[in-house]
């Protein structure tokens, strides 16, 4: 038994099955990310004054990742077009660059995540707040050591990044000077994980879900590019369809980032 229009387009719809399938899937993805972007808007609009941080993320790294993804999308198209022109080696080359771009993107992203998990806010008993990157090399359990930190007197000051000329310095805070938590479970020491604020929560969920899409897309593209590429010899038409459909997904993942970058890094 053969499913009709699995490879060739149906004349009246102009589509083969997988192509309509992927577009429908992308429609549902639009609703998924649409709901998350709506949540972002609602959380931000409802945020109390002085609780929404601005310019917390490194715009240069974000811009770099944007360029990396755009490059990868261009490469996907070049790869697909090469196959259409029957140039399998060029396809291998272009799609190889796509995969490298995916790795580069994930590398930059994990560097940014690590940066946030090393970023700590510590509340002192005297009411001041010390905020900065932790010194992981410090083994002294009686002090909390920062590599580079600033002292502020209230939380709202942390919503803007330190001024360009601000001096960040090494700080060691004795544990005894750190405020106890109200519920008695340890000290008021918290890093910039998703639990730290609504902004970071939605940042991690949005970029985390996006990163999962990048990983999934890259695995599929790699599988078609490598282990499953024998299909090119036996059924080239079907093979090109696979490249096209995975490419459509990849463009969508790229497009999501095009929205994520301004929303999370610039606004």
């Amino acid at each position, binding site marked *: 038994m053969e499913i009709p229009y699995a490879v060739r387009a149906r004349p009246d719809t102009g589509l083969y099955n997988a192509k309509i399938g992927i577009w429908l899937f992308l429609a*549902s993805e639009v*609703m998924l990310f649409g709901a998350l972007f709506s949540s972002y808007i609602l959380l931000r609009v409802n945020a109390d004054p002085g609780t929404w941080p601005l310019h917390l993320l490194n715009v240069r790294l974000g811009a770099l990742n944007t360029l990396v993804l755009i490059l990868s999308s261009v490469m996907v198209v070049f790869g697909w077009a090469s196959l259409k022109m029957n140039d399998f080696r060029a396809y291998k080359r272009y799609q190889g660059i796509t995969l490298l771009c995916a790795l580069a993107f994930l590398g930059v992203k994990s560097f940014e995540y690590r940066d946030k998990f090393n970023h700590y806010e510590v509340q002192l008993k005297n009411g001041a707040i010390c905020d900065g990157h932790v010194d992981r090399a410090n083994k002294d359990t009686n002090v909390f050591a920062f590599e580079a930190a600033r002292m502020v007197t209230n939380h709202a000051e942390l919503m803007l990044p330190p001024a360009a000329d601000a001096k960040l310095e090494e700080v060691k805070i004795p544990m005894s000077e750190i405020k106890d938590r109200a519920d008695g479970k340890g000290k008021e020491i918290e890093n910039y994980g998703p639990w730290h604020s609504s902004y970071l929560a939605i940042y991690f969920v949005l970029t985390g879900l996006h990163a999962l899409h990048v990983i999934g897309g890259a695995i599929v593209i790699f599988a078609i590019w490598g282990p499953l590429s024998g299909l090119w010899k036996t059924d080239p038409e079907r093979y090109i369809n696979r490249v096209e459909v995975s490419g459509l997904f990849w463009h969508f993942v790229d497009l999501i980032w095009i929205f994520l970058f301004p929303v999370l890094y610039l606004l």
Partner: protein
Amino acid sequence: MQDTSHAPEAHHETLGFWRKHIFSTDHKVIGLQYGITALLFMLFGFCLMLLMRWQLGHSGQAVPVIGHLLLKLHGPDMISADKSGTIGVISSDLYNSYGAMHGTIMVFLAIVPLAFGAFGNFVTPLQIGAPDMAFPRLNMASYQFYVVGGLIMLASFFIPGGAAKSGWTSYSPLATVSDLHRPNGQTFWLIGMVCLINSSLLGAVNFISTIVQLRAKGLTWMRLPFFVWAQFVTAFLLLLAFPPLEAAGVLQLADNLLGTSFFLPTGLVVSGAALHVSGGGSPLLWQHLFWFLAHPEVYVLVLPAMGIVTEIIANNTRKPIWGYRSMVYSALVIGFLSFIVWAHHMYLTGMGTKIATFFQTTTMMISIPSVIILTSLLISLWGASIRFTVPMLFALGFLPMFGIGGLTGLPLGFNVSDIYLHDTYYVIAHFHYIVAPGTIFALFAGIYYWYPKITGRFMNEFWGKVHFGLSFLFMNAIFLPMFKQGMDGMSRRMYDGGLTYAAVPAAAGSPAIPGLSSFVLFLNKPILWAAVCLGLAQIPFIINLFWSIRHGRKAGSDNPWDATTLEWQTPTPPPHGNFAKPMEVFRGPYEYSVPGQARDFTPQNEPDAAQTLTHGNPLRS
């Protein structure tokens, strides 16, 4: 699927037991898998409801017979002894778990998989003349996701703290703070839901692709049976409405496990202590995301039922469906409008009167296409010589039951009356009339109707009629009194069946306290016994379902109901690949009693007389 060198039969025989029955990619096998699993879940959800009704009717008394079994299953935290020392009193936490899981199981694991997964899978490709679904392996994956999601839901009963207990709506912040175990029943609920959402997502993509791409030659859009249209719109609802709930589920999962505050407002106090969270979240956000799914979900429950009923009414009235085109357009309008009515579930949340007015307007608008469909079906009965077969009885039962459910929904759609009726038993009665005697009757009708195509035999007619009569009686005995209870103000979520708010007559020195009358509280008891009887009334159906596989009356032909649609023009049961040769369609779906024809039905694949001449292939029997 890529292997075309074998004939269909040869290919069929090479499959072993596991590939043929468990990991099958054949839409008919997957449809049956969905059907059997969903029926089991429905029975399970029904049993949860029986336990709840016992608690409501006999608050504080031990559940008879199975008290010790419940103690073994749920442990001493959940099951205690009553005053006389009998084991088996359900704790309030366990009652809440039963309530939340009854709703979840009935909606997501029983009705939708049965209406969409089972009937959609089995019937749709046959009705459009397709050899299978467009993506057979995705279809298998869809069923597997469903099973995994269902098992996770079931497993949650046995973890510390028990299953989710914040209602099937899982409102935050209650869902995050009601059980402080981590992971808890709510965590399982959310992970289970993500599996179920992925399952229906794969199903929806597959259904739409199949209906768009694999229609037989000549089967234009306005020649599609209404059942296919209903599945088509349903698939779009699932495709576009479910992802926001998936997003909401991910956010609530983060709230529960990572300590984020998406739905937790600043300054939340739990058990007298401020919660250590960053705050700044919005409980309303959860409700918006949840109801953005859950209102279209109502139409996911209803549209396939309407599709089944339409097929059966056309077949048993031996007449074309009245207003087929208006029904199709109505289904499309329902599909569109169902995305902009969700906040009528939220009139009491303080979201603002302007927003409430908007949603009140759209809610009134969506009743119009629903009424058009129901009216068309009613008018289709006019002047027909109706064959009162078992499927037809259930289909006829659907019409007034759905009518009652729909009309009693109007006061809930109006802002003003909803403020009074919100969260009372009136709401319970309203939506159960839609889903239980409504949709479930349609599903029963479908089972009795397509059974001969699946097995080659009819289900027993007499026991089918007994099943219908008793179910009809007891369904109404359960739900009709609830309207009264709700209008008297009984809240739907009370563990003791309303005793807390019982009226107290005046006594020496103290005035009377107004509250629920003793009659309204008494109604809990007949409702319990009607529910037990409804359960007993399903026994003939269950026996009939299995007994008829081997012993039922033989169907005698591939088209025992003299039907017009394509699923009856294949061998019985349909082989792998469905049709002996490619189908071609020449006419609309309901050409019954066409004047001038020899028989009172003309199958869709039968050419016109003029075309017969050119084809030289008259398909007369």
